[in-house]
């Protein structure tokens, strides 16, 4: 019952946002703006939010760590590096940047998972390998940015994740992959539930822990990578959303997963709407809005639910 209440709450607010985005704060209320600019943008926001949130849920389950997010397996750093390379070193390939971005993030996450696979696919090993690889790639990235600081502006738009100028083409290139990923996330729910019981208990329930952890991590990186490839890097949503939902609904992934998808979609749409309406003369990239808003929201959550938070 509680689940149902929250479900309708979130989606109702989503619909409200949707109509607000559609009708209220537009300056040119033409069909073209609505259906060729706003609508695809709204769909992309919802899809990306849902993908990032479910990716975060999986990462936190797999790593047994409430502080994990898709960035832990190198999605963000891999994408940044790919973008830097494209914009600075191979500017000719800019039109392929979504594909290159996807490949970059997947390669880096495979590198991290590969290192930890050798070490027994233990959650601590994944986290440590992630920190190490992320720092190396972050370093290379800073070096590239220093070297080509004149072209930094365009790359920054990607690195901060933006939904501006996204059309139906992006919807079509995101939608099928997102749907596959989200359906697989529902399949992953029962495995996520078992893996959070701890390696020993999970094993005694007949789960192949190492293999499951690898597959769930791959699914999580896939979900994050498809959004990064289409809209750029949007941080924090994969961390904040599952966390919030866990405080609200408890530890069962049968609830966490669908609720996180809804909240993720809603939150990203909200952030995007704010980003494009709060300042008149420019658009703030949704990634930037999300980082600031998400951070403030998170501080509030920690403050309010101090006790709950400790017990999680």
């Amino acid at each position, binding site marked *: 019952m509680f689940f149902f209440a929250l479900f309708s709450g979130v989606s109702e607010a989503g619909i409200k946002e949707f109509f607000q985005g559609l009708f209220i704060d537009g300056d040119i209320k033409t069909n073209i703006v609505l259906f060729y600019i706003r609508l695809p943008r709204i769909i992309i926001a919802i899809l990306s939010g849902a993908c990032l949130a479910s990716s975060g849920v999986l990462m936190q389950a797999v790593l047994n760590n409430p502080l994990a997010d898709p960035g832990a397996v190198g999605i963000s750093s891999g994408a940044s590096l790919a973008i830097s390379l494209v914009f600075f070193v191979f500017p000719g390939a800019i039109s392929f940047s979504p594909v290159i971005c996807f490949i970059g993030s997947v390669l880096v996450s495979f590198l991290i998972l590969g290192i930890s696979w050798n070490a027994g696919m233990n959650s601590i090993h994944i986290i440590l390998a992630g920190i190490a690889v992320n720092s190396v790639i972050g370093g290379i990235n800073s070096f590239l940015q220093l070297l080509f600081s004149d072209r930094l502006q365009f790359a920054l738009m990607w690195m901060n994740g933006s939904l501006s100028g996204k059309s139906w083409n992006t919807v079509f290139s995101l939608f099928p992959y997102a749907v596959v990923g989200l359906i697989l996330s529902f399949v992953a729910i029962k495995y996520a539930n078992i893996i*959070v019981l701890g390696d020993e208990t999970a094993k*005694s*329930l007949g789960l192949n822990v190492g293999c499951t952890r690898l597959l769930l991590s791959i699914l999580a990186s896939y979900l994050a990578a498809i959004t990064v490839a289409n809209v750029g890097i949007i941080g924090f949503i994969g961390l904040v959303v599952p966390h919030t939902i866990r405080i609200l609904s408890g530890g069962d992934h049968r609830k966490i997963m669908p609720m996180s998808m809804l909240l993720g979609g809603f939150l990203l749409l909200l952030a995007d709407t704010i980003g494009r309406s709060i300042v008149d003369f420019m658009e703030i990239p949704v990634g930037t809005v999300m980082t600031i808003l998400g951070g403030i929201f998170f501080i509030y959550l920690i403050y309010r639910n101090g006790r709950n938070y400790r017990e*999680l």
Partner: protein
Amino acid sequence: MVGIIVSFDINGLKVEYGNYFTLDIDSLFIDTAKITCIIGRNGCGKSTLIKAMCGLIKYPEGNIIYNGREIKHMKAKRLAREIAVLSQKHNDVSAFKVKELISLGRFPYNRFFHKSERDDRKAIEEAVYLTRIENFLERKVNSLSGGELQRVWIALALVQQPDVLFLDEPSTFMDIVCQIELLELIKKLNTEKNIGIVAVMHDLSHVLWLSDDVIMMSNGKVVTSGPVDNVMNSENIRDVFNFDCRIENTMKGVFPSIIINENQKRDILE
């Protein structure tokens, strides 16, 4: 299955942990219709032995035959339908509700296209009834006391509907009432539900009261094993624990007591 003894048959088992510890068992037979307790000092390999028997760790050398099948060749899910384990360590699952947590014990029975809600519900109801956790099904795990939580973990194992239940130091961190309730529950599972019990225990009085068979271990080896009355005597305890005591069973139905002898008392104090 009249006439067939359900059992573990271990031969030439060797498990090595680095250079400093080796579990080395020539031959050991465990009748899983009974309650078997494994005792020995900390670090003597008790937990390693039961982990190997449950398929939780790999053993490169030797055989563990359960019901005519080699454990390491059995599929994990199939094994989980026959053997359940109550581990010493658990992850923090405090955000789960008790109801949600124990339902996860049905995982080994869960297949994509073949799923019986009725069997699931029946198994869960029975586990709840046996462990008497009806009253806190809706509560979150973090609101439970240590004794209640242990009952929930046992319920999770029973939801697997195992033939054999392994318990690794089940009564640690429990008060005396919870401990006795736990022992009663273990006995009931064995006599009424025909679930074989293999338990690692530290309290020798509990061992005397609970077990049919006892395995004594020291330095990764089995020192002696057999029916409780044959194994549990002051000579064997002195050999394994280097501890001088006598066993007194003064009243029927009360725990037999391990009494520390005078000279041992002096040794400990000095």
